[in-house]
């Protein structure tokens, strides 16, 4: 592996200052499972890496003001065994159980999962200098596109690989970002950037900023949630398509619904159109199908991924059926 220097900050503030000062030559590391692959494959070439994992202030899970507060450096396996998860945050539990493998969950962190770089056969390949890596061409657009995006895919059809992100967004999670000067709290949904907004980065993190906490509000009574993941292999496989759904039926009509797709777009894709169509409606399968159809009307599949339209439709309908009863 390409050598680098290694630093361990004493505090979040110190970490932020260091990252700001070093600019792009420094990269934060947590569990390392994604970053080290990138370094080994020559996709990332940091001069120094900054270990955030030993900052005790970032590895907490607690409930506060009805919300679950998860430190960015909480490992996925710690979160998975958190007692309240099964009762109130079933979507998260389901997402975690399908995520990567036990060994990765043991070291991988919540922040690392949300900040992991995209999956794309070309982006990850040392021999392709694609547009996202500073080249001029996107090789996926007319290459092998079976795993790529069907929505918002005009510039770069990478898919956002996170299982947790759709689950968190369906629960209206917020993220707390700490920078050298200030902290800011924003909805996780606004954390991600489309390639059109910034081709080389996927998040709004500014130089020196790190994701320190995820806050998940406790769902209202009667809310149900599910995370469905469609993949080719039973474990250790990213989603071809996934669907996170949270919703509530009140007096026979849909009172609340959030539907978020993974594996179909460069960011976790919020199916707002479907949500809006169903609000106030009776929860019936025909309506679900119509809503899913409306969302997918915008799909612009590439030569190899048309199948994802049907798979996404199925997952949306099944997720809504499971949740809206």
């Amino acid at each position, binding site marked *: 592996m390409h050598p680098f220097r290694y630093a361990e900050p004493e505090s979040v503030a110190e970490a932020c200052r260091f990252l700001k000062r070093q600019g792009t030559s420094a990269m934060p590391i947590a569990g390392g499972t994604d970053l080290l692959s990138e370094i080994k494959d020559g996709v990332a070439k940091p001069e120094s890496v900054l270990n955030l994992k030993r900052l005790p202030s970032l590895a907490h899970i607690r409930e506060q003001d009805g919300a679950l507060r998860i430190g960015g450096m909480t490992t996925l396996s710690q979160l998975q065994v958190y007692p309240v998860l099964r009762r109130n945050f079933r979507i998260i539990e389901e997402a975690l159980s399908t995520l990567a493998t036990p060994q990765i969950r043991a070291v991988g962190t919540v922040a690392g999962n949300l900040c992991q770089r995209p999956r794309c056969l070309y982006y990850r*390949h040392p021999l392709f200098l694609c547009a996202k890596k500073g080249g001029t061409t996107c090789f996926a657009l007319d290459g092998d596109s079976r795993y790529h995006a069907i929505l918002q895919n005009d510039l770069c059809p990478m898919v956002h690989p996170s299982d947790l992100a759709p689950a968190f967004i369906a629960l209206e999670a917020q993220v707390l970002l700490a920078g050298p000067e200030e902290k800011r709290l924003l909805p996780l949904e606004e954390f991600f950037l489309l390639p059109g907004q910034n081709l080389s980065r996927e998040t709004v993190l500014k130089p020196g900023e790190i994701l320190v906490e995820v806050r998940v509000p406790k769902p209202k009574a009667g809310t149900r949630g599910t995370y469905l993941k469609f993949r080719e292999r039973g474990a250790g496989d990213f989603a071809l398509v996934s669907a996170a759904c949270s919703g509530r039926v009140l007096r026979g009509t849909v009172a609340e619904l959030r539907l978020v797709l993974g594996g179909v777009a460069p960011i976790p894709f919020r199916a707002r159109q479907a949500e809006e169509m169903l609000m106030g409606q009776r929860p019936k399968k025909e309506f679900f*199908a119509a809503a899913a159809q409306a969302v997918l009307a915008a799909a612009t599949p590439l030569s190899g991924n048309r*199948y994802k339209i*049907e*798979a996404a439709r199925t997952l949306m309908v099944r997720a809504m059926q499971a949740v809206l009863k």
Partner: protein
Amino acid sequence: MREEVAEAALDLIQVEYEILPAFFDPMQAMKPDAFSIHPGGNIAGGKPIVLERGSVEEGFAQAERTFEGTYTTQVHCAAGMEPRVALAQWDGDFLTVWKSSRGIHMLDRPALARGLGIPAQQVRVICPAMGGGFGSKDETRMGTLTALLARKCGKPVRMEYTRQEEFVAGRTRHPSITHLKVGIGRNGEITAIHARTIMSKGAYMSSGSAVIRRCGQGALYLYQTPNAKFEGTLVYTNVPPAGSYRALGAPQGQFALEVHMDKIAEALGLNPLEFRRRHHVKPEGQPGRRLTPPGELVSDQPVEGGIPFSSNRLSECVRLGSRAMGWQRRWRPPNSSPGPKKRGLGMALGLYRGGLAQKAGAEVEARLDGSVEIRVGTIDVGEGAFTTLLQIGAEALEIEPARVTILGGDTATTPEAPVTSGSSTTFSMGTAVQQAAATLKERILDRVCAQLGADRENVKWNKGAIQMNRPTKKTVAWKQALALLSPEERRVRLAIQPGSTEFVINSFAAHFAEVEVDTETGKVAVVKYVAAHDSGRIVNPAAAQNQVEGGVMQMLGYALTEELLVDPKTGIPLNGNFLEHKVPVIVDLPPLKTIFVNAPDPAGPFGAKALGEPPSIPVAPAISNAIYNAIGIRFQDLPITPGKILDQLPLKGRG
């Protein structure tokens, strides 16, 4: 870490390339005006190999109906868990190479000698424990390179492939395109089978000629017909080089054949099981006239008819396997289950050469301390060959296996032995070990009788101890007996030519799969799998089961998820890793039942026949046929991914 110095040095090497036209599709490469990758054009050998029994033209002339179809398979990687490694050390002019290998005597030693310009006697090759072979790892190149470097540096040199290199520069299973034409006569008999296969080679021959030949074996021999023809074309291309991988070309050829036969059965209104029962090859072999001169060894992959099998229990494989699957009771016509998740049953047969090889040597030595060492020049690639050979040796000597050890994988201490290929080890090496051990036993008996003045009829061998009844009652203990022999007498080294002059020796299998296809996601779940095998007598049931279960699972990956993706524009392999070349994991394991007919074959050692590769042959067609039975759509292109299934299904959402 000095390995990273070598890695950094690679970046500093300046190479100027003249970029040449490249082919990733064999159909393009074989066009007459295509740029030649090697002198002489891109069709290896200039023309296809042609193997024919009878005349398919006559057969088709007699046919009432003919059926044609085209089948394709992907680039598939063996991907043993242990990446290839070689380590070379010189001691003066004497070279020792340690490496992952499948043939230390017949492959590596001569290749190293040639590559380095030294006599083979100065080369020692050692293969320590092997982390999975699967027919792969039969190249010497890394050994030669490390030896060259070691000679230049005067120090031992080691090289290990990265996982990426394993996928890209190891050897892959040849992708294939097979066109099949089958003629059916008035009474439903098969009048002719004609198979034409084109395989993309990459730029190197490797073991291609054996692979293409093996591809035709199913078409030529699995179904009873007087007229069969196979034409196999190897085409040079610029994709990662293909070579040996478990069962060579047989999985490709028999995927095409067994899906095609399923289609014919349906067209004839026959249950797939019934069609196969009627037409699969029977113990008497193929019709026709023996062409092999009398007294000559019969090929275990023959083309000609008129030669019976040494044993053929395919009917029993079908009977036992179908019963375990509940086929008669549970089979329904295609696409008959309601709801979005549809179940279906499928089956496929397989036949494979039974395990002949080149001359096989073995040495058995009994020591004065009572231990016995078997020395074999083969390796245990992880399948358990040494355990099996030890059992055969102990059985032939009729002594406790705990007294026996086995030594192998080292050219310096073992007699010449064939390559671990073609599932030949149990058969060939087993026969050599059996005969060497039996010879030793006879020798001990002779010597003890001579010493005691006893007749051979009056002594009994009891786990090495020799009991004499007449003239006096006496027992000579094992160690005492051994002490009567000279060191040379206690050692038997022999070489045999395995095979039969009377019979075709083949192994057989019938596989049955039940799948559930989610027609809304295209996901296929295998819900039950039955593999019934005729591999003669089973030497070690646990290890044999493990081989079959492993072979089935490995090829479920071939059927459903595994493919080395090659970028269509640049030819660069895209997914040389375990994440995207999706080999099965433990949660993908279906309920899996293994059945052995376990009937001894008259030719094999203690009745054993080949086992390692046969389980990998019928899996993909059984799955494709089961998917057809579930949803009524044929998949003739591997792997059968959710994407391909959804692309074929009518889109729901579009009304």
